[in-house]
């Protein structure tokens, strides 16, 4: 087992242990904190596919995070009020079933990413960053100005959506759902990375001309990766809305895009468990330093600066050393 694999296990099992220790210590608040880490890590795992493997620096992933959140909020609201989502030509009702909500969140995010990706991936470098940001901002302002679902005030989910056979109102059970989804997406990411598609995607980042000269069009590979990446981040958004029982345009704001990117960079770009390490450090700092000073992000900034300047591999890079290439 490589050192990175050991660290991955430690991170994965460590996160799993937190809520149970919290329960024993009688500090249930930490369960929520661990759930936040799992969900934000998932958003990062999504971005890491595009950014880490494919080299697509998307500064617009908040769009997918927010769309996932609104999918949960809108479906739940319609289910709660027993108003159909669509009355004609066919009746579509809301849903308070997480599985349905996840599927809808994934499908809509994939569709939106297909459109955004098809346009933005014709550019590269700083233009790609700016255009993905622009799309996310468009969706952000749309959400603010759309009164049907709360506009600027957002939308409350009165009862957390359900999962067959589980009580989602129990913090531990909800944590386990989020944790399981995170692990499933990490597993999918690992398989993707090692697959034919993953090989092509990584070469699209390392040397797109080489990929084309091998007969594989970089654009198509990137577009599919962008769509999968968006779907995962959207799934995280749906869970996040359920965690807070609230969704608002702030989930779509560019700060969120930045934070998701920070998880990935802090943890180690392209490292499988990097987003988990990054999100965990972020939440821990927000909680402890945030308790001391309002300006805790100053320290975050300093750490981020050090990571970018001195350790390219992020936290995983410090702990596991240079990446071992297959």
């Amino acid at each position, binding site marked *: 087992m490589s050192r990175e694999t050991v660290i991955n296990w430690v991170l994965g099992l460590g996160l799993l242990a937190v809520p149970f220790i919290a329960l024993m210590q009688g500090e249930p608040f930490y369960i929520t904190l661990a759930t936040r880490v799992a969900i934000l890590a998932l958003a990062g795992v999504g971005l890491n596919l595009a950014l880490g493997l494919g080299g697509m620096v998307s500064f617009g992933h908040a769009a997918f995070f927010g769309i996932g959140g609104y999918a949960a909020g809108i479906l739940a609201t319609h289910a709660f009020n027993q108003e159909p989502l669509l009355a004609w030509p066919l009746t579509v009702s809301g849903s308070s079933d997480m599985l349905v909500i996840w599927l809808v969140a994934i499908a809509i995010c994939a569709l939106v990413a297909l459109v955004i990706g098809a346009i933005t991936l014709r550019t590269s470098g700083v233009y790609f960053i700016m255009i993905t940001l622009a799309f996310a901002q468009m969706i952000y302002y749309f959400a603010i100005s759309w009164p049907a679902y709360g506009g600027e005030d957002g939308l409350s989910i009165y009862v957390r959506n359900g999962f067959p056979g589980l009580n989602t109102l129990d913090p531990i059970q909800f944590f386990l759902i989020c944790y399981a989804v995170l692990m499933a997406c990490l597993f999918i990411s690992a*398989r*993707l990375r*090692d*697959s*034919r*598609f*993953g*090989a*092509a995607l*990584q*070469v699209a980042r*390392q*040397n797109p*001309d*080489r*990929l*084309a*000269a*091998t*007969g*594989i*069009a*970089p654009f198509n*590979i990137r577009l*599919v990766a962008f769509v999968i990446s968006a779907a995962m981040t959207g799934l995280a958004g749906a869970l996040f809305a359920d965690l807070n029982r609230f969704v608002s345009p702030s989930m779509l704001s560019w700060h969120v895009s930045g934070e998701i990117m920070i998880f990935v960079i802090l943890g180690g770009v392209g490292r499988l468990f990097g987003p988990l390490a990054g999100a965990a450090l972020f939440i821990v700092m927000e909680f402890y330093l945030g308790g001391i000073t309002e300006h805790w992000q100053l320290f975050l900034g300093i750490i981020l600066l050090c990571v970018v300047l001195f350790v390219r591999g992020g936290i995983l890079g410090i702990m596991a050393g240079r990446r071992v*290439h*297959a």
Partner: protein
Amino acid sequence: MPDAAPVLELKGLRKSFGALKATDDVSLDVRPGEIHALIGPNGAGKSTLIHQVAGSLTPDGGEVRFNGADISGLTVAQRVRRGLGRTFQVSSVAPEFSALRNVMLSVQSTQGSSFRFFRPVMRDRSLVDAAMDKLALVDLAERANVVAAELSHGERRQLEMAMALALRPKLLLLDEPMAGMGPEGSKNLTGFLDELRNEVPILLVEHDMEAVFSLADRISVLVYGSVIASGSVDDIRANKDVREAYLGGED
């Protein structure tokens, strides 16, 4: 041999950058079993021409025909899938991948779609074995697991050749393969290409005159974007225009 239908045919290719005619009505062909060398002084427009054949530049006019079909409108990747393999003037590999994984990418491309998401490539014998074969062919088998960025210049050239051959190309476009190879490397590569022509015809762009004269079945000389002479090695050696324009006049 010269009667066979050409594999690659350039017909009246034209490309200008502003007032500069980089490619000025170039027509040439490559036939099965031959090495057709393209030579010319610096700035003659060889690279521009190569780009148009490979598909990374669109000509202003004229046609690129490959195996009888017009491929002028195809992208780089589409042309490669049709069988147009190439190596670059400056080696172009995936630097973070091992030599083996680089070649595996080519093999993967020949096996069809890259939209396969779940099976680990390293456990896929059909990819690994075929890639190892090609590495052995270019004498790079012992370096299979070395990351491409850590290979020497010459080894990266060999790797590129393995990647091109793994595509099972119907034509090879070699852009200065001898550059920076040293005398020993050039000699080996010359021997290698000499054999290779029987499997796949080659359009060879090269500065090393010794290699060109010993390898080429035909030579075309490009000066200021147009072909000033085309013929056998002896024709070109004897051609007055070529001597003046390119070989530096009388010896």
